[in-house]
């Protein structure tokens, strides 16, 4: 039952399905997951598609097992992913930490729903933004992308795989229920036009291989199980040999490595789009489905002559700090709509550091933020006397 990994052409599909196709186009050949609304469609399509391209799908007993299995799958040499929503993401976080510590490339798609707890399983939320950054214990850096359409579910899943392979870490796709369940046009380009990146492989002799010695851009080349390098991989604090080192010096060395590989490569990681920002007096900052509301709001406001622009965050973690620091003195205010009671806005406020007011347009979940609420916030910001 052979099938194509890249379904070149124009399709009408929902975001979850597009995520699956993006994964396959990026080279994903192993999926371990557990059903959960609104991410189930990713697993369902994977179960049908993976055997067609020589991959393996397994439905595990829970999300903890799913996350552990994709880490194992990645060390087995296959690009691996899982998909889930809030409750499952909470369960995955311990093993996401193992993936961060052991520098294991893989992708976790979190189709966010409204919480806390079981919350609103079938309705939208953006409440896991900070959880994706800080949810696993300890000291680390993460990468997370935020698609705003089925097309971006396809594109950003490829991006997530590329970033995970390039920087050796679990990358989270912070989607949401509306993006996951929305049916739209998805264009899948020809396979040779899709940029696919693979993990660096060691080139040194087996005896002198150090599995955690930073390579060309601060990331260590990775041997897979079976390559004959006999590496030791542990979630304990470890040195460049991969051996546990139970002291503060090893902890400093390891966490510095984990931080530097992200912070020293920001220009390769950061990604945001700007719309009509050049002369803008007010900047709307948004991500995911809220960025679509924001785009509608900005376009409508411009028609009314309001000088407003949009920054759409494609990569939400790491946060583009430098960009916002430089933008802050040039605008009267920044406005952030998000479907939570204020998460990314805290990061924006921290970075802006009082150089311009930052306003939150919040919704606790269950519905998207309508453009008119954002327009009202823009008007209010423009009317405010400096």
């Amino acid at each position, binding site marked *: *039952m052979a099938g194509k990994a890249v379904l070149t052409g124009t399709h009408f599909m929902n975001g979850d399905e597009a995520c699956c196709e993006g994964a396959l186009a990026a080279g994903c*050949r*192993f999926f*371990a997951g557990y059903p959960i609304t609104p991410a189930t469609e990713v697993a369902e399509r994977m179960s049908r598609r993976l*055997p067609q391209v020589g991959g*393996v799908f*397994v439905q*595990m*007993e*829970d999300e*903890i*097992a*799913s996350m*552990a*299995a*994709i*880490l*194992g*799958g*990645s*060390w*087995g*040499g*296959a690009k*691996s992913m899982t998909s889930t929503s809030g409750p499952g993401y909470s369960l995955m976080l*311990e*093993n996401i*930490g*193992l993936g961060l510590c052991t520098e294991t490339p893989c992708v976790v798609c979190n189709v966010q729903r409204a919480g806390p707890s079981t919350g609103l399983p079938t309705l939208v939320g953006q409440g896991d933004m900070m959880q994706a950054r800080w949810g696993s214990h300890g000291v680390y850096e993460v990468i997370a992308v935020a698609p705003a359409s089925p097309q971006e579910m396809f594109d950003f899943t490829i991006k997530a795989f590329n970033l995970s392979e390039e920087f050796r870490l679990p990358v989270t796709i912070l989607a949401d229920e509306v993006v996951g369940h929305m049916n739209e046009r998805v264009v899948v380009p020809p396979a040779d036009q899709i940029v696919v990146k693979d993990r660096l492989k060691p080139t040194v002799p087996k005896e002198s291989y150090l599995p955690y010695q930073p390579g060309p851009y601060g990331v260590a080349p990775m041997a*897979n*199980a*079976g*390559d*004959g*390098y*006999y*590496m*030791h*991989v*542990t*979630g*304990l604090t470890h040195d460049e040999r991969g*051996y*546990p080192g139970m002291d503060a010096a090893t902890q400093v060395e390891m966490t510095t490595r984990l931080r530097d590989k992200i912070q020293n490569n920001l220009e390769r990681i950061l990604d945001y789009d700007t719309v009509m920002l050049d002369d803008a007096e007010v900047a709307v900052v948004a991500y995911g489905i809220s960025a679509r509301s924001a785009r509608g709001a900005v376009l409508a406001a411009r028609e009314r002559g309001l000088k407003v622009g949009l920054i759409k965050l494609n990569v939400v973690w790491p946060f583009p700090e430098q960009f916002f620091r430089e933008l802050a003195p040039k605008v009267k205010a920044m406005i952030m709509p998000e479907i939570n009671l204020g998460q990314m806005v805290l990061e924006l406020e921290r970075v802006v550091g009082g150089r311009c007011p930052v306003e939150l347009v919040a919704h606790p979940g269950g519905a998207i933020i309508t453009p008119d609420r954002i327009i009202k916030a823009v008007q209010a910001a423009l009317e405010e006397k400096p």
Partner: protein
Amino acid sequence: MSAQAQAAPQAAHPQDELLRTDRIPHIWCSGCGIGIAFGSLMAAIAKCDTPRDDISVVSGIGCTGRLAGYIHLDSFHTTHGRAIPFATGLHLTRPQNKVIVASGDGDLLAIGGNHFIHAARRNVDLTVICVNNFNYGMTGGQLAPSTPFGAKTTTTPMGSPDEPFNFCALAAACGATYVARWTALHIRRLTTAISEAMNKKGFSFVEVIAPCPTAFGRRNKIRRSLDLLRFYYERSVVKNHLAPGEATIDFDNKLVVGKFVDIERPTYLDQYDMVNRGELEAWPATGVDASAAGQRKAG
């Protein structure tokens, strides 16, 4: 090192080729049985036909969890309880990989119990070695799913009120293809069991009853490891092919050891491949009679 040893470098230990000798001595206490089980595992690996590159060892957390860190193979020390699902991913993406899971009873069967039963049910081709020392040694000797009723641990200071699991019966009930239990003193039979388990297709399980003098023995008036090793051995009785449910660990009566299960069953990947080749008939194979004649009256 003594002056004599410096003068004449002695021969290397025959198991050094499989050890990360730069990490030896290991962290296990004097008289701990994990080292014996580890030696048995290495002896089985040394005899095994599989190329070394294709063998991986996965551990969870705890004293036995440290085992992966001492073996000179691809080795993975994962999170608490999650060695089996990690190993599942490692095996499914590289089926030629012979994946050995070695961990403790608390790791595999308390926090990891759900993964254990489901991996056995799916019959993922893994070799699972459980070192059972009747308590959580790494954290100082707390109640484990194996702690005998009445035994003292730091969290059951008056004696355990819990009924322990029979791991072999559990593994067999969930569909394991190979199930055996030996004490750490049945070394040669243990090594044979690990060899057989490694050569067995499917989910194979070997339980090793091992002394933990520091945490378990000390609180139960068997302080010397030698005495604990001997105690387990002397209470044991070999009963191969006994129904696993009857293979009890009863210190007042009989601690049953032996090989209890050795069967053939298609593995997860066998069935996955078969299903995806389209060789499966519609379920149920007998068909469904939806006519009125086929309906049975309820009640």
